[in-house]
């Protein structure tokens, strides 16, 4: 082995030969979310990746595990007035207010591009009523190229819908059941951290027919300008995201992963492969990269590579073997 290492260093031509002698097995990064098969566990979070095309020059979209597009409502939404974003320490607050093109224009205008991608496209959906959620789900059920739905019951930036559905277990169950009846697509329910006990919410949507849960959405926060004595967001309050929320997200993912038998998708401040690995060890089957897409468009791709490197270094052949292997206590 020592001799081989020397050869590798000194003579690049030998490198190929040496590799043939000792083949390097690429670890298997595939994971399964219900019936949704992903080639790797790294997805992009809703609201941070537009309709994917925005990133086409900067990211190899086909290297991602999944793409979750901007939240789609039944009718187009104009969103909240500006200013809509504020930077905070290691994070950002947003009050975009779910601006989107509406489900019909999404299907006719955005899906033709998305369905050309090799990466599964998950559509995040939101409604002001249980009926609206059902109707959007029905429309997307028939749209070619949609791999799964992520039900957003957790946006803090809208007055109707979002928060109420995401903070009352009975309401969350009702929305989940209604969407379940409207589609055969894999169903992920995205949970809010702005609750007393997120485990209760996870159990409620599990019982109601969800195939997976994703968590967390943003934490409600605010920022004030002392000079003008005004809030920095026109909406006064907004959703906090970015590395600042990672410890909270990780704790919630760990608690939920222990309490439910559904796959859990971890979200919250994931910027590096190490961040993603923390979530996977805590029990997440997959992760979503959110705010990092804004400040480092290559973050998700780098995380895929970093996880691959980690598995090789650890001598692991399959990613699924490390999921939930967090050691606690004296074990």
């Amino acid at each position, binding site marked *: 082995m020592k001799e081989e290492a020397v050869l590798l260093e000194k003579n690049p031509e030998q490198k190929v030969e040496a590799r043939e002698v000792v083949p390097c097995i690429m670890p298997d990064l595939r994971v399964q979310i219900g019936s949704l098969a992903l080639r790797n566990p790294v997805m992009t979070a809703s609201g941070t990746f537009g309709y994917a095309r925005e990133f086409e020059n900067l990211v190899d979209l086909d290297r991602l595990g999944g793409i979750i597009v901007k939240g789609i409502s039944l009718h187009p939404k104009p*969103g909240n007035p500006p200013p*809509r*974003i504020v930077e905070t320490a290691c994070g950002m607050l947003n009050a975009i207010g779910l601006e989107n093109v509406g489900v019909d224009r999404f299907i006719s205008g955005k899906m033709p591009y998305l369905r050309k991608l090799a990466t599964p496209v998950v559509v995040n959906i939101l409604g002001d009523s249980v009926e609206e959620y059902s109707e959007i789900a029905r429309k997307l059920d028939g749209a070619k190229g949609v791999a799964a739905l992520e039900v957003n019951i957790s946006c803090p930036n809208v007055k109707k819908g979002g928060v109420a559905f995401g903070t009352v277990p009975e309401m969350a169950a009702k929305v989940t059941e209604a969407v379940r009846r409207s589609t055969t697509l894999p169903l992920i329910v995205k949970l809010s951290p702005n609750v007393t006990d997120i485990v209760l919410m996870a159990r409620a949507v599990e019982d109601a027919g969800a195939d997976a849960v994703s968590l967390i959405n943003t934490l409600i926060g605010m920022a004030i300008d002392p000079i003008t004595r005004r809030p920095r967001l026109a909406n006064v309050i907004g959703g906090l995201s*970015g590395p600042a929320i990672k410890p909270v997200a990780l704790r919630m993912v760990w608690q939920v992963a222990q309490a439910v038998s559904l796959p859990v998708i971890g979200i919250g401040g994931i910027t590096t492969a190490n961040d993603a690995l923390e979530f996977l060890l805590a029990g997440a089957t997959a992760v979503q990269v959110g705010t990092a*897409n804004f400040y480092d468009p*290559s973050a998700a791709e780098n995380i895929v590579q970093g996880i691959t490197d980690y598995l090789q270094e650890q001598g692991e052949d399959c990613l699924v073997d490390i999921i939930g292997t967090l050691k606690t206590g004296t074990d």
Partner: protein
Amino acid sequence: MSEFQQKCSILNRDRLAPDIFRLTLQAPKIAAKAQPGQFVMVRVIDGLDPLLRRPFSIHRSYADGSISLLFKVLGKGTAMLARRCVGDELDLVGPLGNGFDFSDERPVCLIGGGMGIAPLLFLAEQLHSSGRATEKDHVLLGARNKDELTPLADEFSALGYTVQLATDDGSIGRKGFIPDLLDFVLPIVEQVYTCGPHLMMENVVRQCQQAEVHCQVSLETHMACGIGACLGCTVNGKRGLVRVCQQGPVFNADHLEWSLV
């Protein structure tokens, strides 16, 4: 639009005034595509605080594959950027946005206030290098004091423009605001390009509308991504919200709702 993410090393760091800096960066891909009015998103450090990139308009673009950025230290991000040294690498995404439309009307007037002067030098150079005579074109620059206007004013003059200055303290040029100078220029120009503080641009736009002179404005807002994904940089247009990063940063002034921007 074709943008790139690339590590760019700092070739030059000039301190033009106590808190105004000009960085020249080796950015061949960006320089090759850059148009006046476009911008780049810069990570001022590799760490997480500050987290977001900062948008900077492209101040100059050179044939050797470098670009320069002009900025004033205003907060944490710009203070950190000002401390970066020659040889350091910065992560840039760009060129982004639409840029100025400078195909037709002339003579033109370029009106810059403060750091809003930055993209106008690139525009001035482009207009100049396209072979058109610049003697009839005007440049109005405003800033707090003399320090903030030199050597920028000289660089516009060197291209053949008629340059007029205004400063808050009267240390160079006229004491007062840019719009005071505009009364003399508007009757003789066809097209105005402006970039600067909101209040200055609002006044410029109002005067242009009264004089029926076309006006293009370059806006600055907070942005998270710069590529149209975060929807954080929207402002009020006449037909609803518009994204500064993608539909701008340059707009036809008549398409914006100035009272609400």
